[in-house]
């Protein structure tokens, strides 16, 4: 491509690159700040307000938040809900998406309409609460998984993905006597691993970040996932959650503790992010296929 090398064009480039770099900085700086403060000593936080790199490295905030098992317990709950919830999501979504991808299936368009309509209209918070309660899920961790077992959007995305797979392989397997379930688990899903990876990412992030469902359906604080604890501590200022005699109260600063809790709730996502990054850009576009 021939490049435009006029002065105006170069100026445009300079401004463009600067603004983009600035936006990227604004995105990242808050994270760096939070991480830096969480590792700073209480004195340093009191002395200098803005820390991007602590001069003295301290783990006191982390010692404090692990001094009782409140946060550890909610971490385990979050991991459990994320893993089990995502498995439920993947099983239910692919089981339903596969039959719907078969054009010859009777009642297919009716079922698709049923799914699509739920994307446009919903009963709302109160009736949904009563349904979840009637089914007996309130105050159990199932309330965080079962009522979101299938996302209509992800279902349609996966159905479209299945639909564009070549049919030849499936048919030859069926001639060899395999039933549809075997075809799905042995042939179709192995062929759809990129789509399944993206779907798991979206579902898993949704479960990890789940917050309002827990507020709505779970009253028992011992069953709260991490995000709810995070809100209690950071936004509602309830930071007297963990207090053990082994910790010297002068050793910590409320700000460093809150920062440490934020880091604690964010790091798992930041850890998996680089590994999944190459998948999700494609995945985000899966949904844009019409059908």
């Amino acid at each position: 491509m021939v490049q435009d090398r006029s002065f105006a064009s170069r100026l445009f480039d300079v401004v463009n690159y600067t603004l983009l770099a600035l936006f990227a900085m604004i995105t990242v700086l808050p994270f760096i700040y939070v991480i830096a403060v969480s590792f700073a000593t209480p004195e340093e936080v009191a002395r200098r307000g803005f820390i991007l790199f602590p001069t003295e490295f301290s783990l006191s905030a982390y010692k404090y938040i692990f001094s009782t098992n409140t946060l550890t317990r909610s971490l385990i709950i979050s991991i459990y809900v994320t893993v089990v919830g995502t498995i439920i999501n993947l099983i239910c979504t692919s089981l339903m998406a596969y039959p719907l991808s078969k054009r010859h299936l009777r009642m297919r368009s009716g079922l698709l309409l049923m799914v699509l309509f739920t994307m446009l209209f919903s009963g709302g918070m109160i009736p949904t609460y009563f349904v979840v309660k009637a089914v007996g899920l309130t105050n159990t961790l199932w309330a965080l998984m079962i009522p979101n077992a299938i996302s209509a959007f992800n279902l349609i995305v996966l159905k479209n993905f299945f639909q564009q797979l070549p049919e030849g392989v499936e048919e030859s397997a069926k001639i060899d006597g395999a039933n549809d379930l075997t075809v799905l688990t042995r042939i179709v899903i192995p062929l759809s691993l990129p789509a399944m990876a993206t779907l798991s990412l979206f579902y898993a992030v949704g479960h990890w970040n789940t917050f309002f469902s827990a507020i709505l359906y779970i009253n028992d604080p011992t069953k709260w996932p991490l995000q709810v604890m995070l809100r209690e501590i950071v936004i509602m200022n309830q930071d007297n959650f963990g207090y053990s005699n082994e910790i010297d109260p002068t050793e910590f600063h409320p700000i460093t503790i809150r920062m440490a809790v934020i880091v604690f709730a964010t790091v798992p996502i930041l850890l998996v992010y680089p590994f999944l990054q190459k998948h999700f850009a494609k995945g985000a576009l899966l949904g844009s296929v019409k059908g």
Partner: protein
Amino acid sequence: MKEETRAVNQAIETIDHPLDIKRPSMWRDIVRDRWLYLMLVPGVLYFLIFKYGPMWGLVIAFQDYKPYFGVLNSEWVGFAHFIRFFSEDQFWILFRNTAMLALYNLTFAFPAPIILALMMNEVRVALFKRTVQTLVYVPHFVSWVVVVGIFYMLLTTEGGIINELIVMMGGEKIPFLLSSDWFRPLITMQTIWKEAGWGTIIYLAALAGVDPQLYEAARIDGAGRWRQMWHITLPGIRSTIVILLILRMGDFLDTSFEQVFLMLNTMNRDVGEVFDTYVYTRGMTQAQYSYSAAVGMFKSVFGLVLVLGANWLAKKFGEEGIY
């Protein structure tokens, strides 16, 4: 001779149209696809119970629902809850707050990813582009609790870095988090910070689909970069913009409920209370089930009308629409 012909014809006919193909019976199809139908069972049950169950549950909006009596024995009151809601001042406050937030988001947060994508599209250094992309996607995966939490830590008057800087420069502390004036700008800024980067993905894909020959031709005709952007790039992604706008119209009323819920406090409730948070306060904390279900139903119906309306409008202007 005649009979022979008839027999032959009959034979041919049976060969050409074996019985089951001639009259494909529904029962036969269902038996053939029995595994497929079996696989549908959990999903269909899920949608019936957790999506259509609550829709049926909306009947309580027309009742004076008491959990003790259940849906079947509660008293029917017709549209009383709706009439009460529409005649209250609260209705207009909620409507104004929701519409203002939506307007802020539509004006500032909706164009942000488009502008960002256009800027990224002009970048020729691949490494720079990749780095920026990697960084700006991150906040999308972080929960609203974390985003609001970070904003709280930065903006609080008790040692928040922004207020410390303001004081250092000789200003006075601003109670951002407790101020009605700052509520809407903060919500919009958070939305941009969290979602603008992620939003570029779909536009960048659309931009990649624009025919490079068009740029070539424009350059030969002497068009500069601005004119190329205006006459080629933007028209190239117009239909993407329209489709996303329609989708956005759908959650005009309930977008980022968690975010608003987390940002709400007694000091900014006058501008921050929206339909969903009102439903939660009235329904879950004050146990006015029927009334709050009616408010929620109004919101759902209104949302449906908005999506269908936006879709109709898009088709009217010659765009593709989504339904």
